[in-house]
């Protein structure tokens, strides 16, 4: 295993994608970014592309029987809809009312060492990590939220930024996953640069700093909500349902890209959710698109956010297919060409 030296004395390896074979690569250490940044170019910061060495596990699942996964997705959706009828609107109001309290648009404003680029790298690394452990998208969203809110209130040194990333992921998983990853596994992913004690201590600090307020409304929640709403309104026509499922899967890919990009921190998850779905519809060339006005946002606001997302997608053209299930990435390529 090759390790690189960080600006400090500590021996550190920064990014190691979980699927990578040991010894195959050597990553550059996290470097402090001293160059001035330009706001309007910030979408291009997403260095997601080079971090995806293998396609997502979900694409392997999908490959044997293409119809099977869609059928399963439809059954799941049917069940979810029955509960959605009872509670969907109340859940939405509850989460929507809370979302502003969990936003941290300027989480890096007071960080002496952590910059946009390192945040992007960290999250771009957390994305394959969460896939590697078969974690839900909800966990990833929560982890990013914990990370940002902690950054907003605590200056973090560059040398423990990666530790912060895995610890935030661990806390998120402990809330929503049946089997959260083991501390040992997480430490191994960081090339044992940190000790168990350090991770556990940081976990406590995060919990206290955030006063145990961990259940933020997530992008995942809003993607699901708008998808349910759409299927409910379309009166369960089979074609519409397929489109809704595809759009959601595509939107999730776009959403993952947006999580890694600091520029999108200013947008509330409900807005990002509806825009990701809208963009996904457009990319897949769907006939019956999601009515974006259901989000309650002004057209101009939606348009602005969607344009930014589109720019983000076009800048990350090569990495997006890796974020999508196999069938969908084929479709995506087809519609592109």
């Amino acid at each position, binding site marked *: 295993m090759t390790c690189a030296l960080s600006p400090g004395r500590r021996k550190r390896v920064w990014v190691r994608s979980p699927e990578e074979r040991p010894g195959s690569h050597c990553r550059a250490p996290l470097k402090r970014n001293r160059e001035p940044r330009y706001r309007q170019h910030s979408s291009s910061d997403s260095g997601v592309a080079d971090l995806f060495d293998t396609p997502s596990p979900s694409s392997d699942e999908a490959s044997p029987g293409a119809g099977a996964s869609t059928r399963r997705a439809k059954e799941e959706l049917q069940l979810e809809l029955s509960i959605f009828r009872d509670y969907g609107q109340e859940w939405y109001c509850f989460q929507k009312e809370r979302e502003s309290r969990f936003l941290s648009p300027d989480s890096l404003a007071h960080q002496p060492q952590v910059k946009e680029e390192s945040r992007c790298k960290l999250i771009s690394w957390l994305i394959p990590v969460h896939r590697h452990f078969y974690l839900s998208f909800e966990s990833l969203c929560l982890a990013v939220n914990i990370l940002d809110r902690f950054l907003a*209130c605590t200056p973090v040194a560059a040398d423990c930024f990666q530790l912060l990333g895995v610890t935030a992921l661990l806390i998120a998983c*402990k809330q929503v996953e049946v089997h959260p990853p083991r501390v040992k596994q997480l430490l191994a992913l960081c090339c044992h640069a940190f000790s168990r004690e350090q991770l556990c201590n940081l976990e406590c600090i995060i*919990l206290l700093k955030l006063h145990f307020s961990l259940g933020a409304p997530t992008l995942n929640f809003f993607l699901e909500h708008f998808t349910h709403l759409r299927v409910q309104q379309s009166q369960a026509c089979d074609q519409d349902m397929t489109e809704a499922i595809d759009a959601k899967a595509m939107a999730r890919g776009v959403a993952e890209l947006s999580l890694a990009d600091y520029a999108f921190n200013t947008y509330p998850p409900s807005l990002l959710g509806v825009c990701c779905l809208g963009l996904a519809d457009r990319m897949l060339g769907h006939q019956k698109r999601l009515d974006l006005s259901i989000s309650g946002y002004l057209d101009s606001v939606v348009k602005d956010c969607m344009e930014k997302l589109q720019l983000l997608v076009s800048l990350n053209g090569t990495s997006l297919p890796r974020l999508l299930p196999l069938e969908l990435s084929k479709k995506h390529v087809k519609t592109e060409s």
Partner: protein
Amino acid sequence: MNRMKSFKRRFSLSVPRTETIEESLTEFTEQFNQLNNRRIDGTAQGHLHLNHLGRGYGAEPSMLSSSEGGSPTAVRYRNNSRRRFSMEDLSKRLSLPMDIRLPQEFLQKLQMESPELPKPLSRMSRRASLSDIGFGKLETYIKLDKLGEGTYATVFKGRSKLTENLVALKEIRLEHEEGAPCTAIREVSLLKNLKHANIVTLHDIIHTERSLTLVFEYLDSDLKQYLDNCGNLMSIHNMKIFMFQLLRGLAYCHRRKILHRDLKPQNLLINENGELKLADFGLARAKSVPTKTYSNEVVTLWYRPPDVLLGSTEYSTQIDMWGVGCILYEMATGRPMFPGSTVKEELHLIFRLLGAPTEETWCGITANEEFRGYHFPQYRAQPLINHAPRLDIEGLDLLTSLLLYEAKRRISAEAGLRHPYFKHLGERVHSLPDNTSVFSLKEVQLQKDPGYRSSIFHHTARGKNRRQSIF
């Protein structure tokens, strides 16, 4: 001494009832943290460095607050106005509850500082005094009996020096291989946001280096014990009131997309007034229900729906509704409905009573590999009235709509509250504010349970044998 008395009196007079300690604490913590942050920002100390992480986190303030971060803004000191330090002022600003009692040390401190020297009550001094009176501190609570112990937590009965109220102290050890236990993280983050008359209140969180102590309101008994105490023969009227409270608490959770997942009589706490509260949210929100805790203690299967027993990981609010049905049956009959000790036995008991599932009662079941593997006999459904003769027609109807095999067909908590079974309770129970007990209405009153042994209503439930579950 006299002064102390008048202090206390004035205290209780001017304090509004509605404000909770937590609300004032929140504000306090915010201010405190902002000051702290400012101080820290100035020096390099506050920066998170690896070498700090190795050493510990003793210096962190440990207080309960629901503030979500918040950007640092300047705190203004009110030095300009030279105001007299008055007790009313203090009590108004502290906004403590009526029954609060301040510890001796604090009163002395107040007397030393106060009326003779008129000095401005700055925001800072006011804030600091809140932590002085003992929130977030272990010394504030006296440990009494131990109520139960598990691998991750020990529960004590305790008393708060501030209010003289009994509390339940759940002490969670943090030093584990995997860091803070999942159950603790879930329980705290969820309960902080749940404020309802039928959900147990989390008063305070105390963080020390090695443990996290959750301070809950203390309830004397739980439904399991209540049933034991009344010889498993409960008044059918009380049953209805308990059932209504259970559904009310659950509907509140479900409206927030929080599933309890571990409903059982031991988790439904009951106080001497008959108020029922949901407790133990350790399993809430996990994607599926484990059969064993990390310490390999078996989680009871008795209240688990058949779809989950057959391995479904689909999770929805309806998962809790099956358990509600089992609890209704248990109240009506005095015995658990499906006391299976293995998954197979549990399913067997269910199918023997409610009939083996068919495509009609459970769409898609015949294709379920797991189900086919068991080769259950073709039982026919038995009439529930033979097993629960004390339930009236409406009660049986509610029970039937709770115990449906297909999750999506089960009645929801919200709809359950509107079931004709509860029509005797009147209309007003439906428009109560969240944090108001149903017993605030005069038409809702408990009756004496026919099987109750003692002549005094409900008084024996205390003691060491009280079962408060930990996981």
